[in-house]
Every structure is written in C-alpha cells, then in structure tokens.
C-alpha cells in the first residue's frame, strides 16, 4: 500500500511524497520532486562569464543573492580576480540580508501556521496580526538590503564578478545598521515560539557547512574537509532531484548544521539564546532547524548592524576588478539560507564551457526521506491517516525546501 501525500503547500516549488507500507509496516518514504527540469548547466554554456551570474540568479528567487555570489566566487577563482576587502564585506552583508528575508518568510509565513494550527498566515491575522506584521517588517528589511546591494528585491544584477555595479553610500549603510538594531527585539520573540516544538524528524548525524560562516573553499562533513565532487550523486526514477550521499550516508545542510559547527561565531543576544536552547539544538532533530533559523535570524540582524557600521566607517573602495586570466576552473561555495550551495565552472577564453550547480535542497533529499520514514514509522497505525499526512508535511517544511532550486542537480 502506498500513502500519497498531496503536493506540498507553503514551500517554494512543486513536490510531493509517498510512504510505502507493506504488511502493516512502513518500509520506505519517497520525496517526489515534480518541478520541471530547468537546465541551467546547459543554459550557461557558451555564455560570457560576465553574464553568467545574472542568469544563475534565476535558479531561485528566494535566494538569488546566494546564487549570484556563489557564481561570482566560482568565476573569480577561475579567472584569478582578487577583490578588495570592502567587496567581500558588502557581499557578506547582502547575504545576511537574504538570510533575514528568507528566514522571516519561512518562519512567520510558512512554518508558523503549523504551530498555531492555521492553513496560512493570512488566516492568523485576526488573532495574531501583530506577530505576522513583525515578520513582514523583518522580511521587508531583508529585502531593503537585497535591493540596495543586489539591485532589486528579486533577480537584481548588481553583484558582478570583480565588484558591484553601484556601491552604497555611507548614510545608506548607517541607515541599515540602525534599522537592524531596532528589529532584534521582534526576532527574539519568534525564537521562543519555535523552541516550543517537540523533537521530530531524523537526527542530523552528519552536518555539513562551508569552511567559514557564509562561504569557504571546501565542505565540512563530520571530521572531514572535502571537495563536493567526493560526494556521490544518484539519479532516481521518481524525482527530478538527484540524491547525494557521503560514504553511503545522507547529509544535512542548513541553519541547524551551521549552528552546530559554527557556534563560536554566534555571540551577543543570539549567543545567549543559543545557550538557552543548547539542548534542543544539540539533540540534532531536524525539526529544530526552524529553531536554529530563528536564532540565526537574531544573529543576522546583529551582524548586519555591526558589519554596516564597519563598512561605513572604513570607507568603500569602488570599481570592478578585471580578470588576470581568460581561462580557468573554479568552485564557489556559499551558504544559502537553507544550506550550502555549490557553483562550479570551467571557463575558456572568457566563456563558460562546463558548468555545474548543486543546491541545498538537492543535498537534503536523502535526509528528508529519512525524516519522513522515521516519523511515519512512529505514527503509522496510531494516528488517523489525514493527520499523519499533515504531520509529515510539517517535517518536510522544517527543511525550508526550495524545490525549484533542486531540479538541476547535475554533473555534465
């Protein structure tokens, strides 16, 4: 017998799941990514390196900045473009802006209705309007940063190999810093709400993130530091997203993995919150990815304030650094809101001749199935089928899956 879950709602993109039951026992869980393939690796071929980040941004609207930055970092590695520290800091700032926008969207509008028992955030407005408005305010602030540095809220083209098209003015950065500080008190409230969840899903035994907070030159998998090509990618008949394994085991990326591995970065108010809820985070249950996102939201606001002031006081070195080489190969690892993202290119004479992208939701496919399997085993037979389906959809949502991203997980 197969229990079919309907197409997931309150997630980005199109996917569903099915639970296989044999002789009264749950045997298997399959996540079926139905979003059509989008062929970005083929679309980038033959394109000038300069145009590629604008194209790659279109992989995902929720995290277009992460795609743009991963793309420019891969290009810069390939063509030996060494950008000044201000450019690096501005990129970090805009990535935090994106994490703020994306986490606020996920926590307040997509996941929160599960905790309060509503079909959506709109229905929550009569009774919990303040909370939803706080979420929208934080989300809008994240977008202000994306618009200022990325060029627009969605698919801006201001993040270029070698620098930015337009650079922000000092007073714009100071404004960002003040605004960020004022929002910390709202974000603190959402942490407490998500800390109330019961442990569910699988345990994230092998977390992985990039080598530093937000980007690096390799992947951390448990005790190992590896290049992504050491992972195994497996196509499956029932999904447009391939699966990834490391030494035969599923892997897990996202906010929970970041907090577990990068705890030392989390200071200030976020650091105190992390201390308070340490037991839950360290239990590694996938559901606490949402709690980790909430703590990271507080950290993002604090970091944005600190970073904007720092950039404004140091002054901005403007311009675009030209490439030293015309050909080369490079990888960019960047933390998107829902986990590490990889862009990899080979460039010849300024044009991309080979390209690969792996997105966080694709990385998480195996872990998502394992979580559904473990929860279905616990609940099957003891709860009505409709509520089983509802609970299982909630665990998929805890991953904050971005399904559009996941459908071009390839090595050409």
């Amino acid at each position: 017998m197969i229990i079919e879950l309907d197409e997931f709602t309150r997630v980005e993109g199109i996917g569903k799941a099915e639970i296989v039951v044999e002789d009264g026992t749950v045997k298997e869980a399959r996540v079926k990514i139905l979003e059509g393939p989008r062929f970005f690796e083929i679309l980038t071929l033959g394109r000038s390196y300069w145009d590629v980040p604008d194209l790659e941004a279109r992989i995902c609207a929720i995290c277009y900045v992460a795609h743009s930055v991963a793309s420019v970092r891969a290009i810069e590695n390939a063509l030996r473009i060494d950008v000044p520290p201000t450019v690096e800091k501005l990129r970090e700032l805009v990535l935090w802006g994106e994490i703020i926008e994306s986490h606020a969207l996920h926590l307040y509008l997509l996941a929160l209705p599960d905790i309060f028992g509503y079909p959506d955030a709109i229905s929550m407005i009569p009774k919990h309007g303040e909370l939803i408005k706080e979420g929208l305010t934080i989300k809008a602030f994240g977008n202000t940063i994306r618009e200022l540095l990325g060029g627009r809220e969605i698919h801006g083209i201001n993040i270029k190999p070698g620098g930015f098209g337009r650079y922000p003015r000092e007073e714009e950065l100071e404004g960002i810093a003040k605004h960020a500080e004022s929002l910390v008190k709202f974000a603190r409230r959402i942490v407490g709400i998500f800390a109330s969840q019961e442990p569910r899903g699988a345990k994230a035994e092998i977390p992985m993130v990039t080598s530093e907070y937000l980007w690096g030159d390799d992947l951390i998998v448990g005790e190992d530091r590896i290049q992504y090509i050491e992972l195994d990618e497996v196509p499956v008949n029932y999904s447009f997203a391939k699966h990834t394994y490391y030494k035969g085991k599923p892997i897990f990326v996202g906010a929970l993995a970041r907090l577990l591995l990068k705890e030392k970065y989390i200071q200030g108010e976020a650091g105190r919150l992390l201390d308070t809820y340490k037991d839950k985070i360290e239990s590694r249950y996938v559901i606490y990815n949402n709690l980790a996102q909430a703590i990271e939201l507080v950290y993002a606001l604090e970091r944005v304030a600190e970073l904007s002031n720092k950039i404004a006081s140091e002054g901005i070195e403007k311009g675009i650094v030209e490439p030293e080489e015309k050909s080369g190969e490079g990888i960019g690892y960047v933390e998107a809101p829902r986990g590490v993202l990889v862009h990899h290119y080979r460039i010849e004479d300024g044009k991309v001749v080979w390209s690969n992208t792996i997105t966080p939701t694709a990385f998480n496919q195996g872990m998502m199935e394992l979580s559904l399997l473990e929860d279905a085993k616990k609940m099957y037979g003891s709860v009505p089928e409709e509520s089983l389906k509802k609970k299982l959809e909630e665990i998929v949502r805890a991953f904050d899956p971005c399904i559009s991203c996941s459908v071009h997980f390839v090595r050409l």
Partner: protein
Amino acid sequence: MKLAVFELTDCGGCALNLLFLYDRLFDILEFYDIVEFHMASSRKSKERVDVALVTGTVSTQRDLEVLREARNRSEYLIALGTCATHGSVQGSVENAKEAFRRIYGDIKGPTKVLEPRPITEYVPVDFAIPGCPYNKEEVFQVLMNLARGVEPVAKDYPVCLECKLNEYECVLLKKGIPCLGPVTAGGCNAQCPALGLGCIGCRGPSMDANIPGLVEVLKKILPEEEIAKKLRTFTRW
C-alpha cells in the same frame, strides 16, 4: 471576488513577489478572497475563481494539467512573469529531451517532461504581465483595476523611455555597455541602467522593436554570436 495563484515550473519569484507587496497585500485582501496559493497557504479549492494568476512555463505534463484546470476554472486569466509570457530562461533550451538525457541519464522521472513553453502557447490568456520578476506595482494596479471592473492596459513602450524619463546617462551610447533597453518592453522603471549596467531584456520584446537597428549598434561592442545569445536569454523571438 475570488483569486487563485497557480504555479508551474519557475524559480518561485513570481509567486514570492506577491508576498513582497507587504501592506498592500492587505489592500488586495479587501477586494479578493485568495482561495488557492500553494506557496502561501495550505487551503485547496476546486471552486471557480474570478481571477487566476499563472506563473511559470509549461515544462511537464503536470504543468499542462494545472494550466488547463486554471483556464477552465477562471473568468480572467493573467500570465504573470516572463516564464508565463515568453518562456524566460528555461524556455530558451532548444531540445529538452536531449538536455534531459544529458543531465539525468536514462531515468524516467516522476512526470512526462515537455519542451518548456510559455503558457500563452497552450491557452488563451486575458492579460499578460512580463518581467523576471514583474514589477509588483504593476500587478497591484492590474488587480485593483479588475476589482473595480476596469480593463487593465498593457505597457507598449521600451525600457529606453523610462531611462530617459529618469534622466539616466545612456549606458549603451555613452559608456559602450551592451544594453537591450531599446528593444525591451518597459514597465520596470529601467532598474538595471539605474545601476550603471545594461538592460538584460528580462521583460521580453517591446512592440515595434527595431532588432536589426540594435544589432548594428551592438556589433561595435560584441561579436555577433554573443548578441544572439543575449537577445535569446528570456525569449525565443
């Protein structure tokens, strides 16, 4: 009035952009009951709607079925965003079957893969709002007009016009930066030239676009095959 949002294959941006209306989303809710919008709500409905917004390309059999359902259930259907109106980036893939084999090998996949196409090639649409993403002010105005019984008007001028109105320095003629503004439909308020960068053509062709004229200008900056690739990024022309 009843409103539904249907999502086909795309980056999720066109559905997301509706949520970026923030406070004005509440203004829309004064006039519309959103009965279906999978990114934002778990409500599911099979009822008829007054206005359907459809985003994305038809890239799979599943997309085609959803599109037909949307058309059958709605009085007024709006193709929202460049995927739906012109095919956008995935729509420029030449041979989807071959591309699928290169990427996935011999697997079947969960649903039949079709050549990615804009929805306008499958069903009649009542209105189209291009943009990758579209300008959210535009969708707000269109929904408000429809709520008041006013037929919305399509924009029929190129990006250049908005660039001039904003008094931006011409990136193409003054700085020699490739720019598709002269042949691209306006409505974005020339956001890319505002950054000192060239228009990448994300809203698709404007009416009466003089392509040969632009190609002549671009030839001084770019090799011809690059011009062709740039023009075909968001639409097949």
